[in-house]
């Protein structure tokens, strides 16, 4: 893909990924075929800040985990009352990076 297009993508979507992944994403986007672009440009990534807010208010019900696609862990959190409240508390600090990791998995699936 063209470097300009890729940089535009990175500028508008960089916040959805871990900072140490951004460079690797940029390189693989430049190496990727142009046919991936339409798919990539319409993909919705989860915003870590939104998920953090959901986690703070509804983390005990596992809704944050459901939203990022960790259905199994979401069910686990729901059934155990947020892991006796402890898991829900830990997730306030973990969920943002978990969201970014999930976004990374998503982009890898598109490019893979």
């Amino acid at each position, binding site marked *: 893909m063209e470097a300009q297009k890729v940089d535009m993508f990175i500028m508008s979507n960089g916040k959805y990924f871990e900072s140490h992944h951004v460079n690797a994403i940029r390189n693989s986007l430049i190496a990727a075929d142009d046919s991936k672009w339409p798919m990539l440009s319409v993909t919705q990534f989860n915003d870590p800040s939104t998920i953090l807010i959901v986690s703070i208010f509804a983390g*005990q019900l596992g809704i944050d985990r459901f939203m990022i696609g960790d259905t*199994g862990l979401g069910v686990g959190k*729901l*059934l*155990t009352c947020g892991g006796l*409240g402890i898991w829900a508390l830990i997730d306030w600090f973990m969920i943002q990076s978990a969201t970014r990791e999930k976004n990374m998995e998503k982009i890898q699936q598109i490019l893979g």
Partner: protein
Amino acid sequence: MALTSNKLYVLIATACSVGYGWLFFNISESFTDFSNFRVCLIKEVTRIPCPSCGTTRGVISLTKGHFLDAIYTNPFSVLVAAIMIIAPIWIVLDVVKKKTTLFHFYQRAEKIIIKPKIAIPLIVLVLLNWIWNIAKGL
């Protein structure tokens, strides 16, 4: 940090051991001083029970053989008790046989459960259970 089979097994094993510890803490009479110790944030903040409130009480009823009491307290308790019994055995079997059947089952279940045809009825059931919990005043 994708969920690998090892991570999942460690997570489930930890969850089960904490669960058994919590159950022992609640059953054992040596901790009666802490009988008011509650962990549910939602109930502490809003005074409204959450969908899984009453699960501990339900599992305790199950250990005493009162199946109907458990269902009445919270149907989730039967599910949680089943997971707490089956999961450790499954993990041990997988570790001994060096297989990852539980991990594959988990991944398949995740894919099935997310389909709207199955997810929507399940969400409705959880909500109904929640309403029932509030009505019962757990």
